[in-house]
């Protein structure tokens, strides 16, 4: 399903003394199957934007078209439940989406609600709990007696269990340990490729943004500051710093190498392997010359 956002504005508590405009005039189109990443400083409007995509927040101006669903300011969309079957959101704070008395019930909630037979739903739960790095013994535990990272994993399993075609991830790796971070990003990317998902990732990890995205959107003060592929976006460190962002560690490393060795190196270096290769190319040149 293609996503088209036109002239989107959102003001919280509209018409009250507490009114606060969080988004203004957002125009954006996300073709089906895209890995779209959204970055931007604290409070720039990322979470507000993505919560419009399943109707949790309503536009105060403008419209959002998702496949043949249309969400429009001032118009009631009657098929929100059908839309939510397609659009799964992992929230920034996982506590906000855990509520059942056991972890299994929590993971089953979405699928059962959308008519998946219980047996099939249970199979999904048993598979997913392992895919997010916990063992099956967790299923009977309470989701509230968990560590922060464990809660995050359960919340992710619950959203994946619905098999959404649009997967929205609001800082899904915050609070995960280094291995969990790697494994869970790999899991998202595998699902993205294998199931042809549209993935929308909000992140403060420039490394993840660089590695996985087809397109990166930078938000600033409720609007769009920059948009482009990883190579374009991360080719301008100065612009990023002005927006409270940065280039990935690998790119920082390349810049430092260039400066120290006064050499030109390829800039789109987004993996450890590529960074190591760049260092090797410099060391080996040294060997040739000697």
């Amino acid at each position, binding site marked *: 399903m293609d996503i088209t956002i036109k002239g989107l504005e959102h003001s919280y508590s509209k018409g009250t003394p507490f009114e606060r405009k969080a988004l203004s005039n957002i125009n954006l189109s996300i073709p089906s199957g895209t890995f779209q990443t959204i970055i931007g400083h604290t409070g720039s409007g990322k979470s507000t934007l993505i919560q419009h995509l399943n109707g949790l927040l309503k536009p105060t101006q403008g419209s959002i078209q998702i496949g043949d669903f249309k969400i429009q300011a001032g118009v009631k969309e009657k098929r929100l439940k059908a839309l939510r079957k397609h659009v799964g959101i992992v929230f920034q704070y996982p*506590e906000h989406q855990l509520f059942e008395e056991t972890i299994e019930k929590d993971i089953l909630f979405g699928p059962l609600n959308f008519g998946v037979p219980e047996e099939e739903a249970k199979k999904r739960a048993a598979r997913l709990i392992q895919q997010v790095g916990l063992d099956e013994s967790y299923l009977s535990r309470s989701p509230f007696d968990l560590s922060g990272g464990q809660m995050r994993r359960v919340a992710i399993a619950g959203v994946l269990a619905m098999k959404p075609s649009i997967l929205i991830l609001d800082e899904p790796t915050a609070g995960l340990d280094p*291995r969990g971070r790697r494994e869970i990003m790999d899991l998202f990317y595998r699902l993205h490729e294998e199931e042809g998902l549209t993935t929308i990732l909000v992140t403060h990890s420039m490394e993840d943004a660089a590695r996985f995205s087809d397109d990166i959107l930078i938000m600033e003060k409720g609007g769009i500051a920059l948009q482009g592929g990883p190579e374009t976006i991360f080719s301008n460190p100065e612009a990023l710093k002005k927006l*409270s962002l940065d280039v990935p560690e690998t790119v920082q490393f390349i810049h430092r190498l260039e400066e120290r060795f006064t050499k030109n190196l390829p800039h789109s270096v987004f993996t*450890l392997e590529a960074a190591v290769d760049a260092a090797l190319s410099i060391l080996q040149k040294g060997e040739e010359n000697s």
Partner: protein
Amino acid sequence: MEELITVQGVSFRYHEDQPHVLRDVSLSVYKGEWLAIVGHNGSGKSTLAKLLNGLQLPEQGDVLVEGYNSRDEESIWEIRRRVGIVFQNPDNQFVGTSVRDDVAFGLENSGMARELMLERISESVLKVRMEDYLDQEPHRLSGGQKQRVAIAGIIALRPSIVILDEATSMLDPAGRKEVLQTMRKLKEEEGMTVISITHDLEEAAQADRLVVMNAGEVIDEGLPVEVFKKGDMLEQIGLDLPFPLQVQRALSEKGYDFSRLTLSQEELVNELWTLQLKV
């Protein structure tokens, strides 16, 4: 060095019918240090934090904060006054209906004069750059703004020990650097002691000392550069090395010998320079 916190042989579990989540943990925290605690999800870091300020009590062993034992009922308030925790989920920490009230709450409890209180509020809110949000309800802030306010609430109290439980995990790169810088300044200027629970290895690398937890136990402790020598062990328990060390390790495997381990990119590039001169 003055020992502020002593944890002696502490074991803990949340329910009697569940396994222990801390097992025979012993640990010292020294005045004025920046101590980072790393460990996989569920290894017991947040639980340990709660024991350090008396929110939970040990089943076995003792927690002493400046001599006060958390088992003594009269000591609890002395301990809480000294140890401030910025919780992993800031929503669990907010009590006020505005940012101002929320920061004021802890100060009111300490019986502070109103003048001083107002000064403290604006000062700490300014430190985390949330001065434009004083009237906003804390629950109606963005994820990163909540973390900033939670930090302000604790630094306003000027506890001698601050525990940051992944307190900057939702901040943008510049915001994270800035907040950590602010904390470092408080440490340098006011002698505050910082315990930082983190999954950010770059941050851990900058600590004075590092504690590694695994499955409820402290399995290693020392200078970051010493602990990070054990790359294989760290990987086995779900952790990793900071980026400069990952690069160094990959190059060592290709036969390049480094004279020392580098925790920052700057040091790494200098080492590469030396290496290149040698070949």
